[in-house]
């Protein structure tokens, strides 16, 4: 656009020189026409702008660290007239590590333009259009184009095998407690209590009720395993975090394979407030990671071990596993 502006300035200078050297009407007419031409150029460019909007779409919602994240930049326009030299300045940021970069590229209304971003560290890569603009026919004035919403890609750690799962399973029956089974039903272990409105009639222990002359309910109990809380420290260098999240994902997936839902907790680096997310499947794990990856991690911070854990509601005994870059601490060890 600078070259076009210089060219136009040269054109104006030539017209002024022509006005000076040429004594007749044409020189003034040409000078005025050239001065008015940018307005015409601007007006003619406006129809192409109608309904124009930029879209940033990730090629896949997540990639594995070490690969490349790819975004597709496309331009939608509702006008039959073209946009002139639509360009977009993109900035991508790893929200976890704070790494960022930017690119300037030409968008096209007819074809998606790919943008490849290296995914060197775990985190959430957000690609945002800082500025999207077109220009008038002469290329003198920038005209804004709708920027649309940001695109985001999760950079997940590569799969990792846990070193010693035996130790993790060693104490799995510890802390078994009996808790009322929701919905009742048959069972060997039960407890008696007074009737409360809403209890089903078939749970009433009629024999004992007749003896005591008040309604007594037999509540079936079932053994419940201890809740597992997995913690990690949300700070450190990107490399440290990469290893930490690799261990965390490996542990979480292993627990899910063992059908052990668990909680992942970490301390927010700024407020030291404990973030707690329940993980009962792959989807929940990704949601948890997205939240974690969206939270910037400083180089230094306060360990979650220095504070208190958030105990899951209704849990009995809690097993606490702490993930470090080197492995998992706690469990049966």
């Amino acid at each position, binding site marked *: 656009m600078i070259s076009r502006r210089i060219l136009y300035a040269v054109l104006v200078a030539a017209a002024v020189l022509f006005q000076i050297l040429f004594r007749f009407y*044409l020189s*003034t*007419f040409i000078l*005025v026409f050239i001065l008015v031409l940018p307005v015409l150029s601007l007006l*003619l460019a406006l129809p192409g702008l109608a309904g124009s909007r930029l879209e940033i779409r990730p090629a896949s919602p997540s990639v594995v660290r070490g690969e490349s994240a790819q975004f597709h930049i496309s331009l939608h326009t509702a006008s039959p007239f073209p946009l002139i*030299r639509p360009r977009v300045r993109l900035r991508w940021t790893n929200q976890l590590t704070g790494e960022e970069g930017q690119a300037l590229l*030409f968008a*096209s209304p007819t074809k998606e333009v790919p943008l490849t971003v290296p995914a060197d560290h775990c985190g959430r890569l957000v690609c945002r259009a800082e500025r999207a603009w077109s220009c008038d026919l002469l290329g003198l004035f920038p005209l804004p184009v709708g920027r649309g919403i940001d695109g985001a890609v999760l950079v997940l750690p590569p799969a990792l095998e846990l070193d010693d799962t035996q130790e993790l399973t060693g104490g799995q029956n510890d802390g078994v407690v009996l808790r009322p089974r929701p919905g009742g039903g048959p069972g060997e272990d039960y407890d008696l209590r007074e009737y409360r409105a809403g209890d089903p009639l078939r749970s009433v222990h009629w024999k004992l009720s007749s003896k005591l002359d008040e309604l007594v309910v037999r509540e079936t109990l079932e053994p419940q395993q201890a809740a597992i809380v997995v913690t990690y420290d949300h700070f450190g260098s990107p490399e440290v975090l990469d290893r930490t999240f690799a261990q965390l994902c490996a542990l979480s997936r292993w627990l899910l394979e063992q059908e052990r839902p668990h909680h992942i907790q970490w301390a927010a680096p700024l407020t030291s407030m404990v973030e707690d997310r329940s993980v009962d499947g792959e989807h929940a794990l990704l949601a948890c990671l997205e939240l974690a990856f969206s939270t910037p991690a400083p180089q230094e911070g306060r360990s979650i071990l220095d504070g208190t854990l958030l105990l899951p509601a209704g849990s009995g005994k809690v097993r606490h596993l702490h993930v470090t870059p080197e492995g998992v601490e706690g469990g049966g060890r």
Partner: protein
Amino acid sequence: MKRHPKHPLKPRASRRPRPLELFTGCLLLFLLLTGTLWSFSSAVQQPLHPLLLLIGCALLSVLLTLICALPTRWMLVGMAAVLGAAGFTVWRLFPIMQLGEITYRCSVVNTVCTSLELDGFIHPIAQLPTGVWVRSATLLTLVVAAVLGVLLALAVVRRPSFSVSFLLTSPFVLAPLCISVTPAWLPLMGLILGWTVMGLGSLVRRQDRAGAAKLTLLSLPAAALLLFLLGLAMPQDSYQRPQWADDALDSINNWVTHLDVTLFHGKGPFGFGSGGSFADADGKVELSNAGPLNFSGRTVLEVDTDLRGRIYLRGFSSAVYEDGSWNPLPEDRYSWMFWDETQEGEPPSFTDSVFYPSLEGFQPLNFPALADRDMFPNKDYAKVTVRNVGADPGYVYVPYHILSQPDELSGAKFVNDSYLARGDDVWTHTVYVQPNCDPLSGAELPGEASQAESTYANFVYDSSYMAVYEDVVDALDAVIEDLVTDMPGHLPGGAENPAYQAYLELLQGGAERETDITRTYPMVMAGIVAAYLDGLAEYNPDTPATPEGEDFVSYFLTESHEGYCMHFASAATLILRHIGIPARYVTGYVADVPASGHVNVPDSAAHAWVEIYLDGYGWEPVEVTPAYAGSNPGQSGTVEPTPTPTAAPTPTATQAPQASARPSAAPDNPQEEGEEAAPLDLRFLLIPLAAVLVLLAFPVRRSVGRSRREKKFRQENTNRAVIAAYLHLKKLERWGGQMPDEVAELAKKAKFSPHTLTEEERTTVVEAARTISAQVDKALPWYKRFCCRYILGLC
């Protein structure tokens, strides 16, 4: 910043154009082809058959466009076929083509000669009917159109390129413009329209040729409308060239002159002289090539002075007339008069001339002022500052009766008794003059100055100031005979002529004292000579050059009887000498100083006049050119500011801006210019009117935005009012406004709850919106506030 490759989708492949591209390309091809050829033919005033030309160009455009739609191989074959057809036409119709070439050649040559005022007009030898010439020229034009069309089709339809199409077509228009010839308006506008549309589409064509074709459909009528509206808004009939353009042209001319002096005549890289200063002026005037006067109008001198009215700015005087030119006196003729013992170099030799002692530092150009100063010591002197911006760089142009003596000058130096030379790199000079000096006032030079004048007077009467060139003697004798035999009969008005009346008065003893006689007699005779020349010859600025072999003055006095200031001044100088009055030829400028005291002297103000020598007084200028009759060169304006300048003679054409001694005719009269000034063009009122409307649009936009907002806030449905206030606050968030939680909650309630919000809740939200709006407005920097207030209407 990572920069991705530009234009990832750049369609540079030379693909075949699509139907819409062909259609728009055909239109542009027709515009460019027709506009180019028609503009050129109209510029050279070559009549053509317009209908034939239009139809031919249209058919060619369609044919070439269709050829461009073919695959490359077949397209090349088609193009070759068109060129072959053109060649075949030339071969078969060669005699007609020759006629077309002849008529075009005549038109081009005659147009150039007309525009550049050259001789050499040509006409066809063959005497044929006009229609034959027109048809021949049209046919030749169509053949040229076929060749040009092939190239243009490639550059417009097949592979569109603005630069190539411009390069192909522009020479046909730029060539006439270079010689100040404007083509016919309609084809020129067509051509400009084609260029404009090609230029507007050049950027988008790189990325999307199909889109560019759509855009052409939009830009073609839009650009045509713009050209049409501009033509309406700027009618040619009332065109006035902007003053700034004239001023700029002056500046460029002056700059070029200074550059020329600096580079080629000064101390610059190519210089051989001394900065156009002391040694550069030669005091020569070439008369033999003095033809019709030309005029550029550029400024040559800028004068600031206390004087008002007409002043004569003296350049230099010439003493020796021979071989059709005025020359200075040889240096050795001055003997020791102007020798300064402090200066370097050999003292003047006087072996071949009479010895004249030194004037002791006195300068003859100061004599009249010194005499008048001695007699009227309390008279106010006047300051004159002259800046040389384009005149001959060798001279300092000063008014008459300068008081500044040789030792009081800086940046200038008297050269003998002839002129004041400019110092190195000094372009502005300030001198002091004694205004309103009158040689008949009885003023006498005091003491030593009187002795110096006496020495100089002897020199004047002994020197070439009395010499007459032999070839002119016969013509001068004839003049004397005319005056002696029948003086009144040769003067305009006969015996009633004022000069003749003064002559009679002088004969009847009108001068009481001896000094009066010695000064009155030359003055009266100068008047007689001026009147005689007025009656003998006609003032004509277009006087052609003197024929080769003829003497300039003799031819003027005996043959042509027409001329301008150079002719009159040269003749008068020699006539005065012939009747015994020392005289010399002077070159300079005439300026009319307005009440402001500042005047830009154009080159057209160059002039020539005569100086006669008055004993005991010095050189006194006299005007002998009829066009300047009434002017008194010796009366250098007045010190008292006058509202109007002295009446001037009729402005006439003037001489070329050549910085030589060749003068020109009378300058324009500023008073007349004022009277003839065009009335104010009311269209210029549109500009301030538009500015006012634009300024008013901003507060109106704010007011409209505010009223619409308040109307939404006050609407009957409280839920909608709250949502409107919420949306307004959302807009303000982009400008730094904070959305209160309570407002957000109430907005959600208004949107999603089936309940109707109360008036209190509406008031709460609306008040919050107003408060935050005011806060945002106050917190923003001025440019954002302007945008927020007057463009978006948010605050």
